[in-house]
Every structure is written in structure tokens, then in C-alpha cells.
């Protein structure tokens, strides 16, 4: 195939996702030959999930320990000087959460463990700005989807 033909096929929007995924696939395949180096002094440490699960901990795998407002749990920040009360509320459980965690071993894996359950300090305190951005990405997606639904799907007959 001539080079000019290849360039021309790049100008067709339909071909671009294919091209992109081919390039991405090739790069991901080369990832297998790159030597993996893993830093185990991680910024956001946590015991291995299997450890807490085999200890029959109802909060597994999210138990970071600590007593609320008294003893900090295992949360490590990049800049501790900017997060002074790090780890202080990570062990907080609401009364409902305590009740549920006493009846089941799988409280930590359930979706309702976050609101009023385990407070993830990395999400809400030391990296709170990321959470704001994540939810604004979600909000923009909903704005776009609802606008399109309202104007292109529901009000189509008016035109």
C-alpha cells in the first residue's frame, strides 16, 4: 500500500479509534518486556487484603485501625505538614455501620460502607481536591447526557 493512501485513511474519523487502539495495544504488549520495579514504601499503605480477610475482620480490606479523634490510623500523607489531623477520623463508624459490621463479615466490601461507614481519609482529606474533580467529571457527563436527552430525544417533534 502506498504511503499516501495510508495518510488518506488517517483523515477518516471512523478509522481513528482502530488506529489508536492498535497503537495502545502494541505499547501495552511492550510493557511485558519492561522490567517491573515496585516501590513498597508506598504513599498510601494498607495491609494486604487477604490478611484482613483471613483474620475475619468485618471491615476487611479497608480497616486502617485507629480510634477516632484519639489515635491516628495507618494513613500516610505525602506532605504531613499540610494534613495535620491525618488519620484521626479514619476509624469512625456510624451507629448503623457498627450494627451492620457486627452482623456480617463483609461490611468492608459493601457499597454502603462509605457514607457514614468507613471514612476514607485519602479521598476526603489528604487528596480531597481529586475527589472534587472526579465528581465534577461525573457531573459534566450528566449535564451533557441530560441536555442531549432533553433536546434530541424528547423535543424532536417541535422542529
Amino acid at each position: 500500500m502506498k504511503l499516501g493512501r495510508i495518510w488518506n485513511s488517517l483523515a477518516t474519523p471512523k478509522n481513528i479509534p482502530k488506529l489508536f487502539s492498535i497503537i495502545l495495544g502494541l505499547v501495552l504488549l511492550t510493557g511485558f518486556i519492561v522490567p517491573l520495579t515496585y516501590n513498597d514504601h508506598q504513599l498510601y499503605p494498607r495491609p494486604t487484603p487477604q490478611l484482613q480477610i483471613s483474620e475475619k475482620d468485618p471491615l476487611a480490606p479497608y480497616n486502617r485501625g485507629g480510634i477516632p479523634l484519639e489515635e491516628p490510623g495507618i494513613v500516610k500523607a505525602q506532605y504531613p505538614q499540610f494534613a495535620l489531623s491525618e488519620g484521626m477520623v479514619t476509624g469512625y463508624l456510624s451507629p448503623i455501620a457498627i450494627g451492620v459490621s457486627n452482623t456480617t463479615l463483609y461490611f468492608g466490601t459493601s457499597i454502603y460502607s462509605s457514607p457514614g461507614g468507613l471514612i476514607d481519609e485519602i479521598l476526603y482529606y489528604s487528596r480531597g481536591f481529586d475527589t472534587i474533580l472526579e465528581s465534577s467529571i461525573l457531573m459534566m457527563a450528566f449535564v451533557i447526557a441530560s441536555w442531549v436527552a432533553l433536546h434530541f430525544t424528547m423535543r424532536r417533534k417541535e422542529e
Partner: protein
Amino acid sequence: MDLSTLGGQFLGTIPLGDIVLYLTTFNLFMFGAALVFTAIIAMSRTESQVEAEFGTLNEREKKVSKDEFKIRRFLSIVCGLATAGAMITGDLFNFTLFVCLIGIVNIGIVAAVKEVDVLDSAFQYGIIAMIATLPLFGGAASILATTGTISLLELVNIPTSAFMLFSSILLFIGVAGESGVAPFFATKAEMFRTAGSPFLVIIHLSSLLVIVRIIEILLIINKPFGI
């Protein structure tokens, strides 16, 4: 490589917990430029295009309706603010989130138009933007795994390993997909064939500034000319 070698004078930081935004003269200039352009776009009105019809003497005017104008202006302002944020952020994961926000808002800016061709190419761009989140976040995550940090102020001092190089290639592919640069430009170029030029300009500007910024970040991570 020092932060001030790349960005000029180091002017200070804005700490938000672990996410520390930092200001150098270079970053601050791009931040200011993005904000100024956003303000101009927020104030400007759209043009109307006139198309001659084939075979007759009639002509057709393409205008941006009021509803469409409102949503596109809103999304353009969000896009401008996200671009400005991506310029000064000092955290890799934060940067990827800003880029992701720019990507999704770019689709939204053209999603409101009625030309079928434009919507088709916006759909293709959306597919790329979706695929590109894998290398984008995967690159940031593997840099965190291999160095133990994603703060750019710390990454400056960490010597480069082979895996960091690989993860930054992933990161670049992610940004290239989200912003639609070189071989993937066709989808974005087709998206511009519609009325409403101020909003199309912010799509352009955001990808330009993000590309400049990712090059700076890749230089910070990889230090090609030594520490």
C-alpha cells in the same frame, strides 16, 4: 532537571493537602492565558454561517440557537477552567483528572450541534477519549507503583527507571488520545465544521496547552538531560 530550569523562576506553592499546586513563571503564564481566553469566550457571541445551496440561488443560514448557545458556553467555561487548573497542578493524578474533564467537556461542546457529520466524528472522538482513560490513569498509577509518589515536586528528585519511562509513554498516549494530536487529529478536525467558533477555539486551545504541559511533566519525570 530542576523545576525552575524548565519553568523559569519558582514562585511558590498552593498546598491543598497532598495535592500541591506550584507556580513557576511558565506555568503561571499559561494559567493566566487560559483564564483570559476563558473570560473572552464567556463574553463573546457566536457567528452565523451562510451556506450556498447547490443547484438553486437560495442560501441557508446556520445559527446557534439560544439553548445550544447556553450549554455550549457553560461547557466552554468549564473547559477553560479545567485547562487553567491543569497548567498549575503539581500532582500527576490531579493532572490526569483535569485532562479527563477537558476530554469529556470537549465532546459536550460539540454534542449540542445538529450537523450529523459533526456528531459522527464527535462520537468517534468520544470512543478515543474513553479508550484513552486506560493509558492515562494506568500511566499515573504505574508511576505511583514504581516510585511510591505522584507529586511532581517529589518526582523531580527520583532517578528514572525503565518502568517510569514506559509509564510516561502510556501517559503520553493517554493525553494524545484525550486531546487528539498528530495521528488522531481527524476526529477533532471534523468536529470543527460547525457554527459557534468561540467554543471551538477553546477545544483547540485546551489541547494545545495540555500538550505543552504534558511535555513539561514528561521532562520532569524522565529527566533526559540528567538530574
